[in-house]
């Protein structure tokens, strides 16, 4: 059985096609990354899995339970850390977690709540009102709320936004432990180094479609190559297709190898363009991400760059 199975999910909001037929399988026990620029459809997809949004077409299942027809079982199997920093100002941290437990039919859940408070470094704040917490603490309470019912599938939608580095590390250690204990983790994040370090497999979304889906390792090796940071007055037109990102005079180009770098330098020399600065970078997920996003921009119909058949 799959932890998550989405088949041909489509959803339109007015004139915006938020999801345009997404097929996705996340296997049990995976640490899975869902990446994409703002507006790519990540949160819409998560919302459909969580029952917060209805799909126009397609079906979604959590551990085999249809999120519409069998929503009780599906929601019981799923824990979601929402992107928005929301809280109920009437309650303390402990009350918030107890109430959330109760919604899932769990009474006398204090042993697990204490463990959550400990792991999320909130033990000293258990009796503090939610209003008095910092943004990072509120974010960790959201994580706690998603985990009160020990869901086998955990979705974290940008969980570390606003959380400082030290706490981010302890949070990831805890999430890793949960993954090690068998929980399936689905993560969306803007910190691509986090996805690279944590996720075994990654799907990249763009304009409501999956444009890449592979293991993190394969994505990195498929896109092995050079990323060149070039600062110069202009770039010869023939090299513009290699452009990943442009920030004024500073341009990032994706090159296949050093031979291509030589040809770039020759082209600059021939065109009489002076180089202010040139630097090379190792391929990391950020560059893979930029290349895939840049590559699929060239066509109206986003095509899967890498598709791996599901086991």
């Amino acid at each position, binding site marked *: 059985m799959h932890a998550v199975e989405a088949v041909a999910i489509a959803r339109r*909001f007015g004139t915006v096609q938020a999801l345009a037929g997404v097929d996705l399988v996340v296997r049990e026990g995976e640490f899975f990354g869902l990446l994409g620029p703002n507006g790519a459809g990540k949160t819409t997809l998560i*919302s459909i899995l*969580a*029952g*917060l*949004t*209805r799909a126009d077409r397609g079906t979604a299942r959590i551990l085999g339970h249809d999120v519409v027809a069998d*929503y*009780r*079982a599906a*929601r*019981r199997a*799923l824990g*979601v850390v*929402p992107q*928005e920093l*929301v*809280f*109920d*100002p*009437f*309650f303390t941290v402990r*009350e918030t977690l107890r*109430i*959330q*437990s*109760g*919604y*899932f*039919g*769990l*009474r006398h859940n204090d042993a697990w709540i204490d463990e959550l408070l400990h792991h999320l470094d909130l033990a000293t704040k258990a009796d503090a009102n939610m209003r008095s917490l910092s943004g990072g603490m509120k974010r960790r309470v959201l994580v706690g*709320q998603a985990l009160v*019912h020990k869901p086998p599938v955990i979705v974290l939608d940008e969980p570390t936004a606003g959380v400082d580095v030290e706490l981010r590390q302890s949070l990831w250690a805890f999430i890793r432990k949960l993954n090690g204990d068998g929980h399936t983790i689905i993560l969306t994040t803007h910190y691509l180094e986090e996805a690279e370090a944590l996720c075994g497999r990654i799907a990249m979304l763009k304009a409501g479609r999956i444009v890449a889906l592979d293991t993190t390792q394969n994505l990195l090796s498929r896109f092995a190559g050079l990323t060149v940071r070039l600062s110069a007055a202009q770039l010869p037109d023939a090299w513009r297709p290699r452009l990943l990102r442009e920030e004024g005079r500073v341009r990032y180009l994706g090159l296949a190898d050093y031979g291509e770098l030589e040809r770039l330098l020759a082209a600059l020399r021939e065109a009489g363009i002076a180089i202010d600065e040139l630097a090379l970078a190792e391929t990391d997920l950020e560059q893979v991400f930029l290349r895939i996003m840049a590559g699929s921009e060239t066509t109206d119909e986003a095509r899967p760059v890498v598709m791996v058949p599901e086991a």
Partner: protein
Amino acid sequence: MRQALAAGWLTLFHKELLRFWKVAFQTIAAPVLTALLYLLIFSHVLESRVAVFGGQVRYTAFLVPGLVMMSVLQNAFANASSSLIQSKITGNLIFVLLPPLSPLDMYAAYVLGAIVRGLTVGVGVLVVTLFVSPAPVSLAHPLWAIAFAVLGSAILGTLGVIAGIWADKFDELAAFQNFLIMPLTFLSGVFYSIHSLPPFWETLSHFNPFFYMIDGFRYGFFGLSDVAPARSLALVGAAAVFLAALALAMLARGYKLRH
């Protein structure tokens, strides 16, 4: 498993109680004071000028159950509607939408919370107004009074759920309250017997469902009413069923909740 399923809505119900209890000064004490002020002012001005039920009941005594029921209705509406709109606007409604709560679970929890708030304020108003009322107030048929108070608060709690779901902003909720709930309440006979109205307005009052709630509730006190209490109960019951079906349909569709 069945026990666990039941607990979900009970927790939401409990949370709804905690929500108003934690700010009881605002949610209970304030409406009790408002009702008391109404009683002091209206009874002082009108006690000697208005005769109700052919002079069988003194005006101040007549006013007491009217004010009690008005407070029950307004606070039942306020509880469900403000809870939902606050949760929607602050975004914390997601904590209720993510768990395995059915539309009926949500409906039951919000409406029962509204009933408890309405009845709590109603008892508070009753105790305080009885204490200061110069005229004796009887309680001829307490079961009728309880039946109308519970049904009336259920209806207003349901309207609160509907308004809380429908409204996207606080001013939309305020419009619902000021242009629908308030006129229907004030024109329902809280402060007067409809027999004292000109024929046109008396006839029109019969189309106001709030009139039957107040009139039936008042029957519980004096054994006197403008309309037979059984008829009022049937009409109020029918309104409760219709509105409950509407609220449940909205919740089941996820109207303005699940986009």
